[in-house]
């Protein structure tokens, strides 16, 4: 089983620093997990990822089950060996992609019924099947199959049904997992559902926390579907407050720096998102002063690196914005360069949070981040609200700070 040690807590917010020891090494938390959908971080090798100081990545079960499939992964000796990644790995349940990528998906009590992309045959993904696939992949953390509904679903009865079913499916996952013999090397996480309804969330939390002894961690699911940010953070806060102290908390599908820091302040330890790697391929580099869109002509003659203080291979080699402008969206190597930078940016944001929490300076760290990142754009109102709820007033002592009521992220 995983070893999870909380090392320090922020004196003001609910943020904490911890150490998660899994079968493939130690991952310090809070951390951001880059997404290697098809057993590869777009264009980068496992060694490049390791050199960036990343110790935990995510693979998508839905995709790996289609290609290469569990048989080949079995022949390879698991997904770690297959992709040459010898650090920690998390797999999702496959349910989310099934619902979002399949043409036909019908949820029944037994599982999710979908059309096989290969044969067109109706195929069933049950909680047991999801466990079995994830066992074959061999991730250090595996996720329960949950009944996923969009956070924007207006139908409360459907959200309630999905929440209750997710609890029942958790039980089936636990039973299967605990009988598999894999529970010593692979760690099952539960996923809290309940949409944007705090009462449903509470009921879900109560039931899932009862199963704490059978799970290694908890995820907060069903968010990041386009809901109001002020609703988003309140649900995250509610979940993080009730989830047990001695289990890691994973907020699924978030990746903007401000979202990450707010969630950390609310007590979240882990997050994942395709955003930093996807946006890199479109030429957007993330920096502490906000995103830099390298496709803009204003960078054509800019001989500075993306961020002169960044330790990533791209910036430390002095690669200029001008050079990146010349090759971005034309050469894959440009995507690799910006992808490495963005992964390092995410890791720096989270690493900086770890240090600040350890040093007792996390509230200052938040203030500095927002001052650098949002000075011109204005602080997002929802971030101000969320951080106030855990005792940090970003606007305190400076009446000149602009506040941005919009919910959109800063962009260039």
């Amino acid at each position, binding site marked *: 089983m995983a070893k999870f040690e909380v090392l320090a807590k922020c004196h003001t917010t609910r943020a904490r620093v911890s150490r998660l020891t899994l079968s493939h090494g130690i991952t310090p938390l809070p951390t951001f997990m880059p997404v290697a959908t098809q057993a590869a971080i777009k264009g980068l090798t496992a060694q490049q990822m390791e050199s960036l100081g990343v110790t935990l990545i995510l693979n998508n079960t839905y995709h790996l089950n289609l290609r290469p499939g569990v048989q080949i992964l079995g022949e*390879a000796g698991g997904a770690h060996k297959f992709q040459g990644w010898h650090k920690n790995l998390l797999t999702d349940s496959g349910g989310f992609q099934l619902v979002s990528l399949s043409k036909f998906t019908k949820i029944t009590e037994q599982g999710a019924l979908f059309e096989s992309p290969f044969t067109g045959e109706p195929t069933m993904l049950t909680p047991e099947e999801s466990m079995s696939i994830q066992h074959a992949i061999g991730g250090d953390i595996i996720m329960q199959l949950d009944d996923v509904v969009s956070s924007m679903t207006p139908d409360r009865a459907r959200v309630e049904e999905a929440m209750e079913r997710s609890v029942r499916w958790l039980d089936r996952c636990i039973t299967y997992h605990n009988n598999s013999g894999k529970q010593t090397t692979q760690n099952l996480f539960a996923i809290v559902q309940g949409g944007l309804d705090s009462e449903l969330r509470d009921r879900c939390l109560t039931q899932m926390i009862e199963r704490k002894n059978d799970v290694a961690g908890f995820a907060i699911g069903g968010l990041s579907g386009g809901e109001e940010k002020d609703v988003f953070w309140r649900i995250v806060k509610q979940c993080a407050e009730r989830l047990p102290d001695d289990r890691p908390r994973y907020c699924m599908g978030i990746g903007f720096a401000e979202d990450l820091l707010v969630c950390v302040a609310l007590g979240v330890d882990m997050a994942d998102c395709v955003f930093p790697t996807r946006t890199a391929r479109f030429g957007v580099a993330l920096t502490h002063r906000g995103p830099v869109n390298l496709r803009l002509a204003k960078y054509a003659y800019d001989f500075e690196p993306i961020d002169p203080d960044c330790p990533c291979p791209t910036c430390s080699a002095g690669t200029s914005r001008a050079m990146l402008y010349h090759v971005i969206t034309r050469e894959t190597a440009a995507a690799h360069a910006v992808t490495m930078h963005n992964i390092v940016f995410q890791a720096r944001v989270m690493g900086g949070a770890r240090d600040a929490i350890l040093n007792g300076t996390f509230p200052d760290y938040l203030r500095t981040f927002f001052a650098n990142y949002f000075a011109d754009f204005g602080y997002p109102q929802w971030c101000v609200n969320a951080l106030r709820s855990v005792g940090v007033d970003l606007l305190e002592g400076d009446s000149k700070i602009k506040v941005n009521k919009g919910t959109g992220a800063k962009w260039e």
Partner: protein
Amino acid sequence: MLSFTLAAPCARRPRTGTVRLRGVIEKTPAAMATTSRGVVPHLSRDQYNRAHIPWVHIPFESFLENNPPVPTLQPGPFPLHTFLGFDPDAHILSLSLRDPADGRETPANGAQYVAASTSRGVRRVTVADWRGHVHACKPDIVVAMPDIPWTNPPFSQKRTTKSIERTVSWLAHLLAPDPPLNILVHMAGGVNERARRAFAQSLVEPLDGLEAAAVKPLKCLDDGIIGYTFDLVPLRREIDVEDADKVSALLQSSLEPLPPTKLRVVISVVSPHQILRLIRDVGIDLFDVKWAQDAANVGVSLDFVFPVPQDDSQQGRDLGHNLYRSHYAHDFASLSTAACTCNACAPVVIKNAISHSQLDAHIASAPSGYTRAYIHHLLHTHEMGAHALLVLHNLAVVDKFFDGIRAVLARGDDFTAHVAAFAAQYDESLAIVNEARTMWKEVDVARGKGRIARERD
């Protein structure tokens, strides 16, 4: 300045030598990597630094999209190296105006300019422009601007004569009177042996009068250059360059009047077989390996060695593996049968990783080599990492191939016999690459065009 010394000064072919520039030493015959928009395709800087091909060729024309071209404003002592991210202590950069691999029809050149092709249309570049760009970018080696007609062949004798005259005059312009450059000259004259000989002749003719004054103290143009380039793409538009004897004859007609001591570069060979023949018959020193890079681009991992081991003769074997083929899905062998030390087959141990907090304590993994099955998976899931790993591998196979060539030549073995054995062992038609290209295109069509366009999700 660059120095090139032959191991045995009299030997015209085949031959070995050494190129020295700053701290970089390149033993010849050797390989040269090619670039697209200044980048070795698919390799980030940290990855290219782990490949062992020191000589990189840069076509300049994509930089003409901006005026002034961006690298010409790059500060520092090595502007081109700095801009593109090559280490001056490890990499030799040569620069040509046009991409020598691009054989598409282009509007006619003028008496004073070349029509260069960019993604934003055609740009006219005068010899004075070229000189300015070169002095601003400071490449290690520059290819003098040649007048190669890119209009529809065949070309009249008049056009060929004009091409020769312009190429000579533009070379003279680059030679005078500024600080010395390492200059390579395109061997003009097209597919006419007499014209090629006449062009070469004009390089060694003693100059007089104004011409001599302009390039003082050089006695002839050849004194100011380090070597010759032979571009196969323009020849391919007019003759069948698979006709090895014809190509050798054309190249030799250029070399006849010239001193044997200078570097000989061939651009756009298509196979290792062709490389071996040109070394054997013409004494070529340097080849671009775009063909091997292109093989990686379409999913082929090269798998061949020179010399062919005595105990291993299998006629007509493929030069590599088309990793799109379905049986590779279950093949967990490394990318080539022959042992390979590239960063895909034997990844370096990451001793130092970036530390993001005081808690981060890096423990290096013991890396394992990537398998055919993994690359097969990446190719079929349209993951661009496949090509990065294949380029690393193919460059290493090619590097070893040249090691083998030099070793055979150094030992004084019967090179001709080894070339014959290689030709019997490996399929020269590159059927495997063509097959892979077809499968690559199918994937491409299925996912939208372009390398990046298919990375949208």
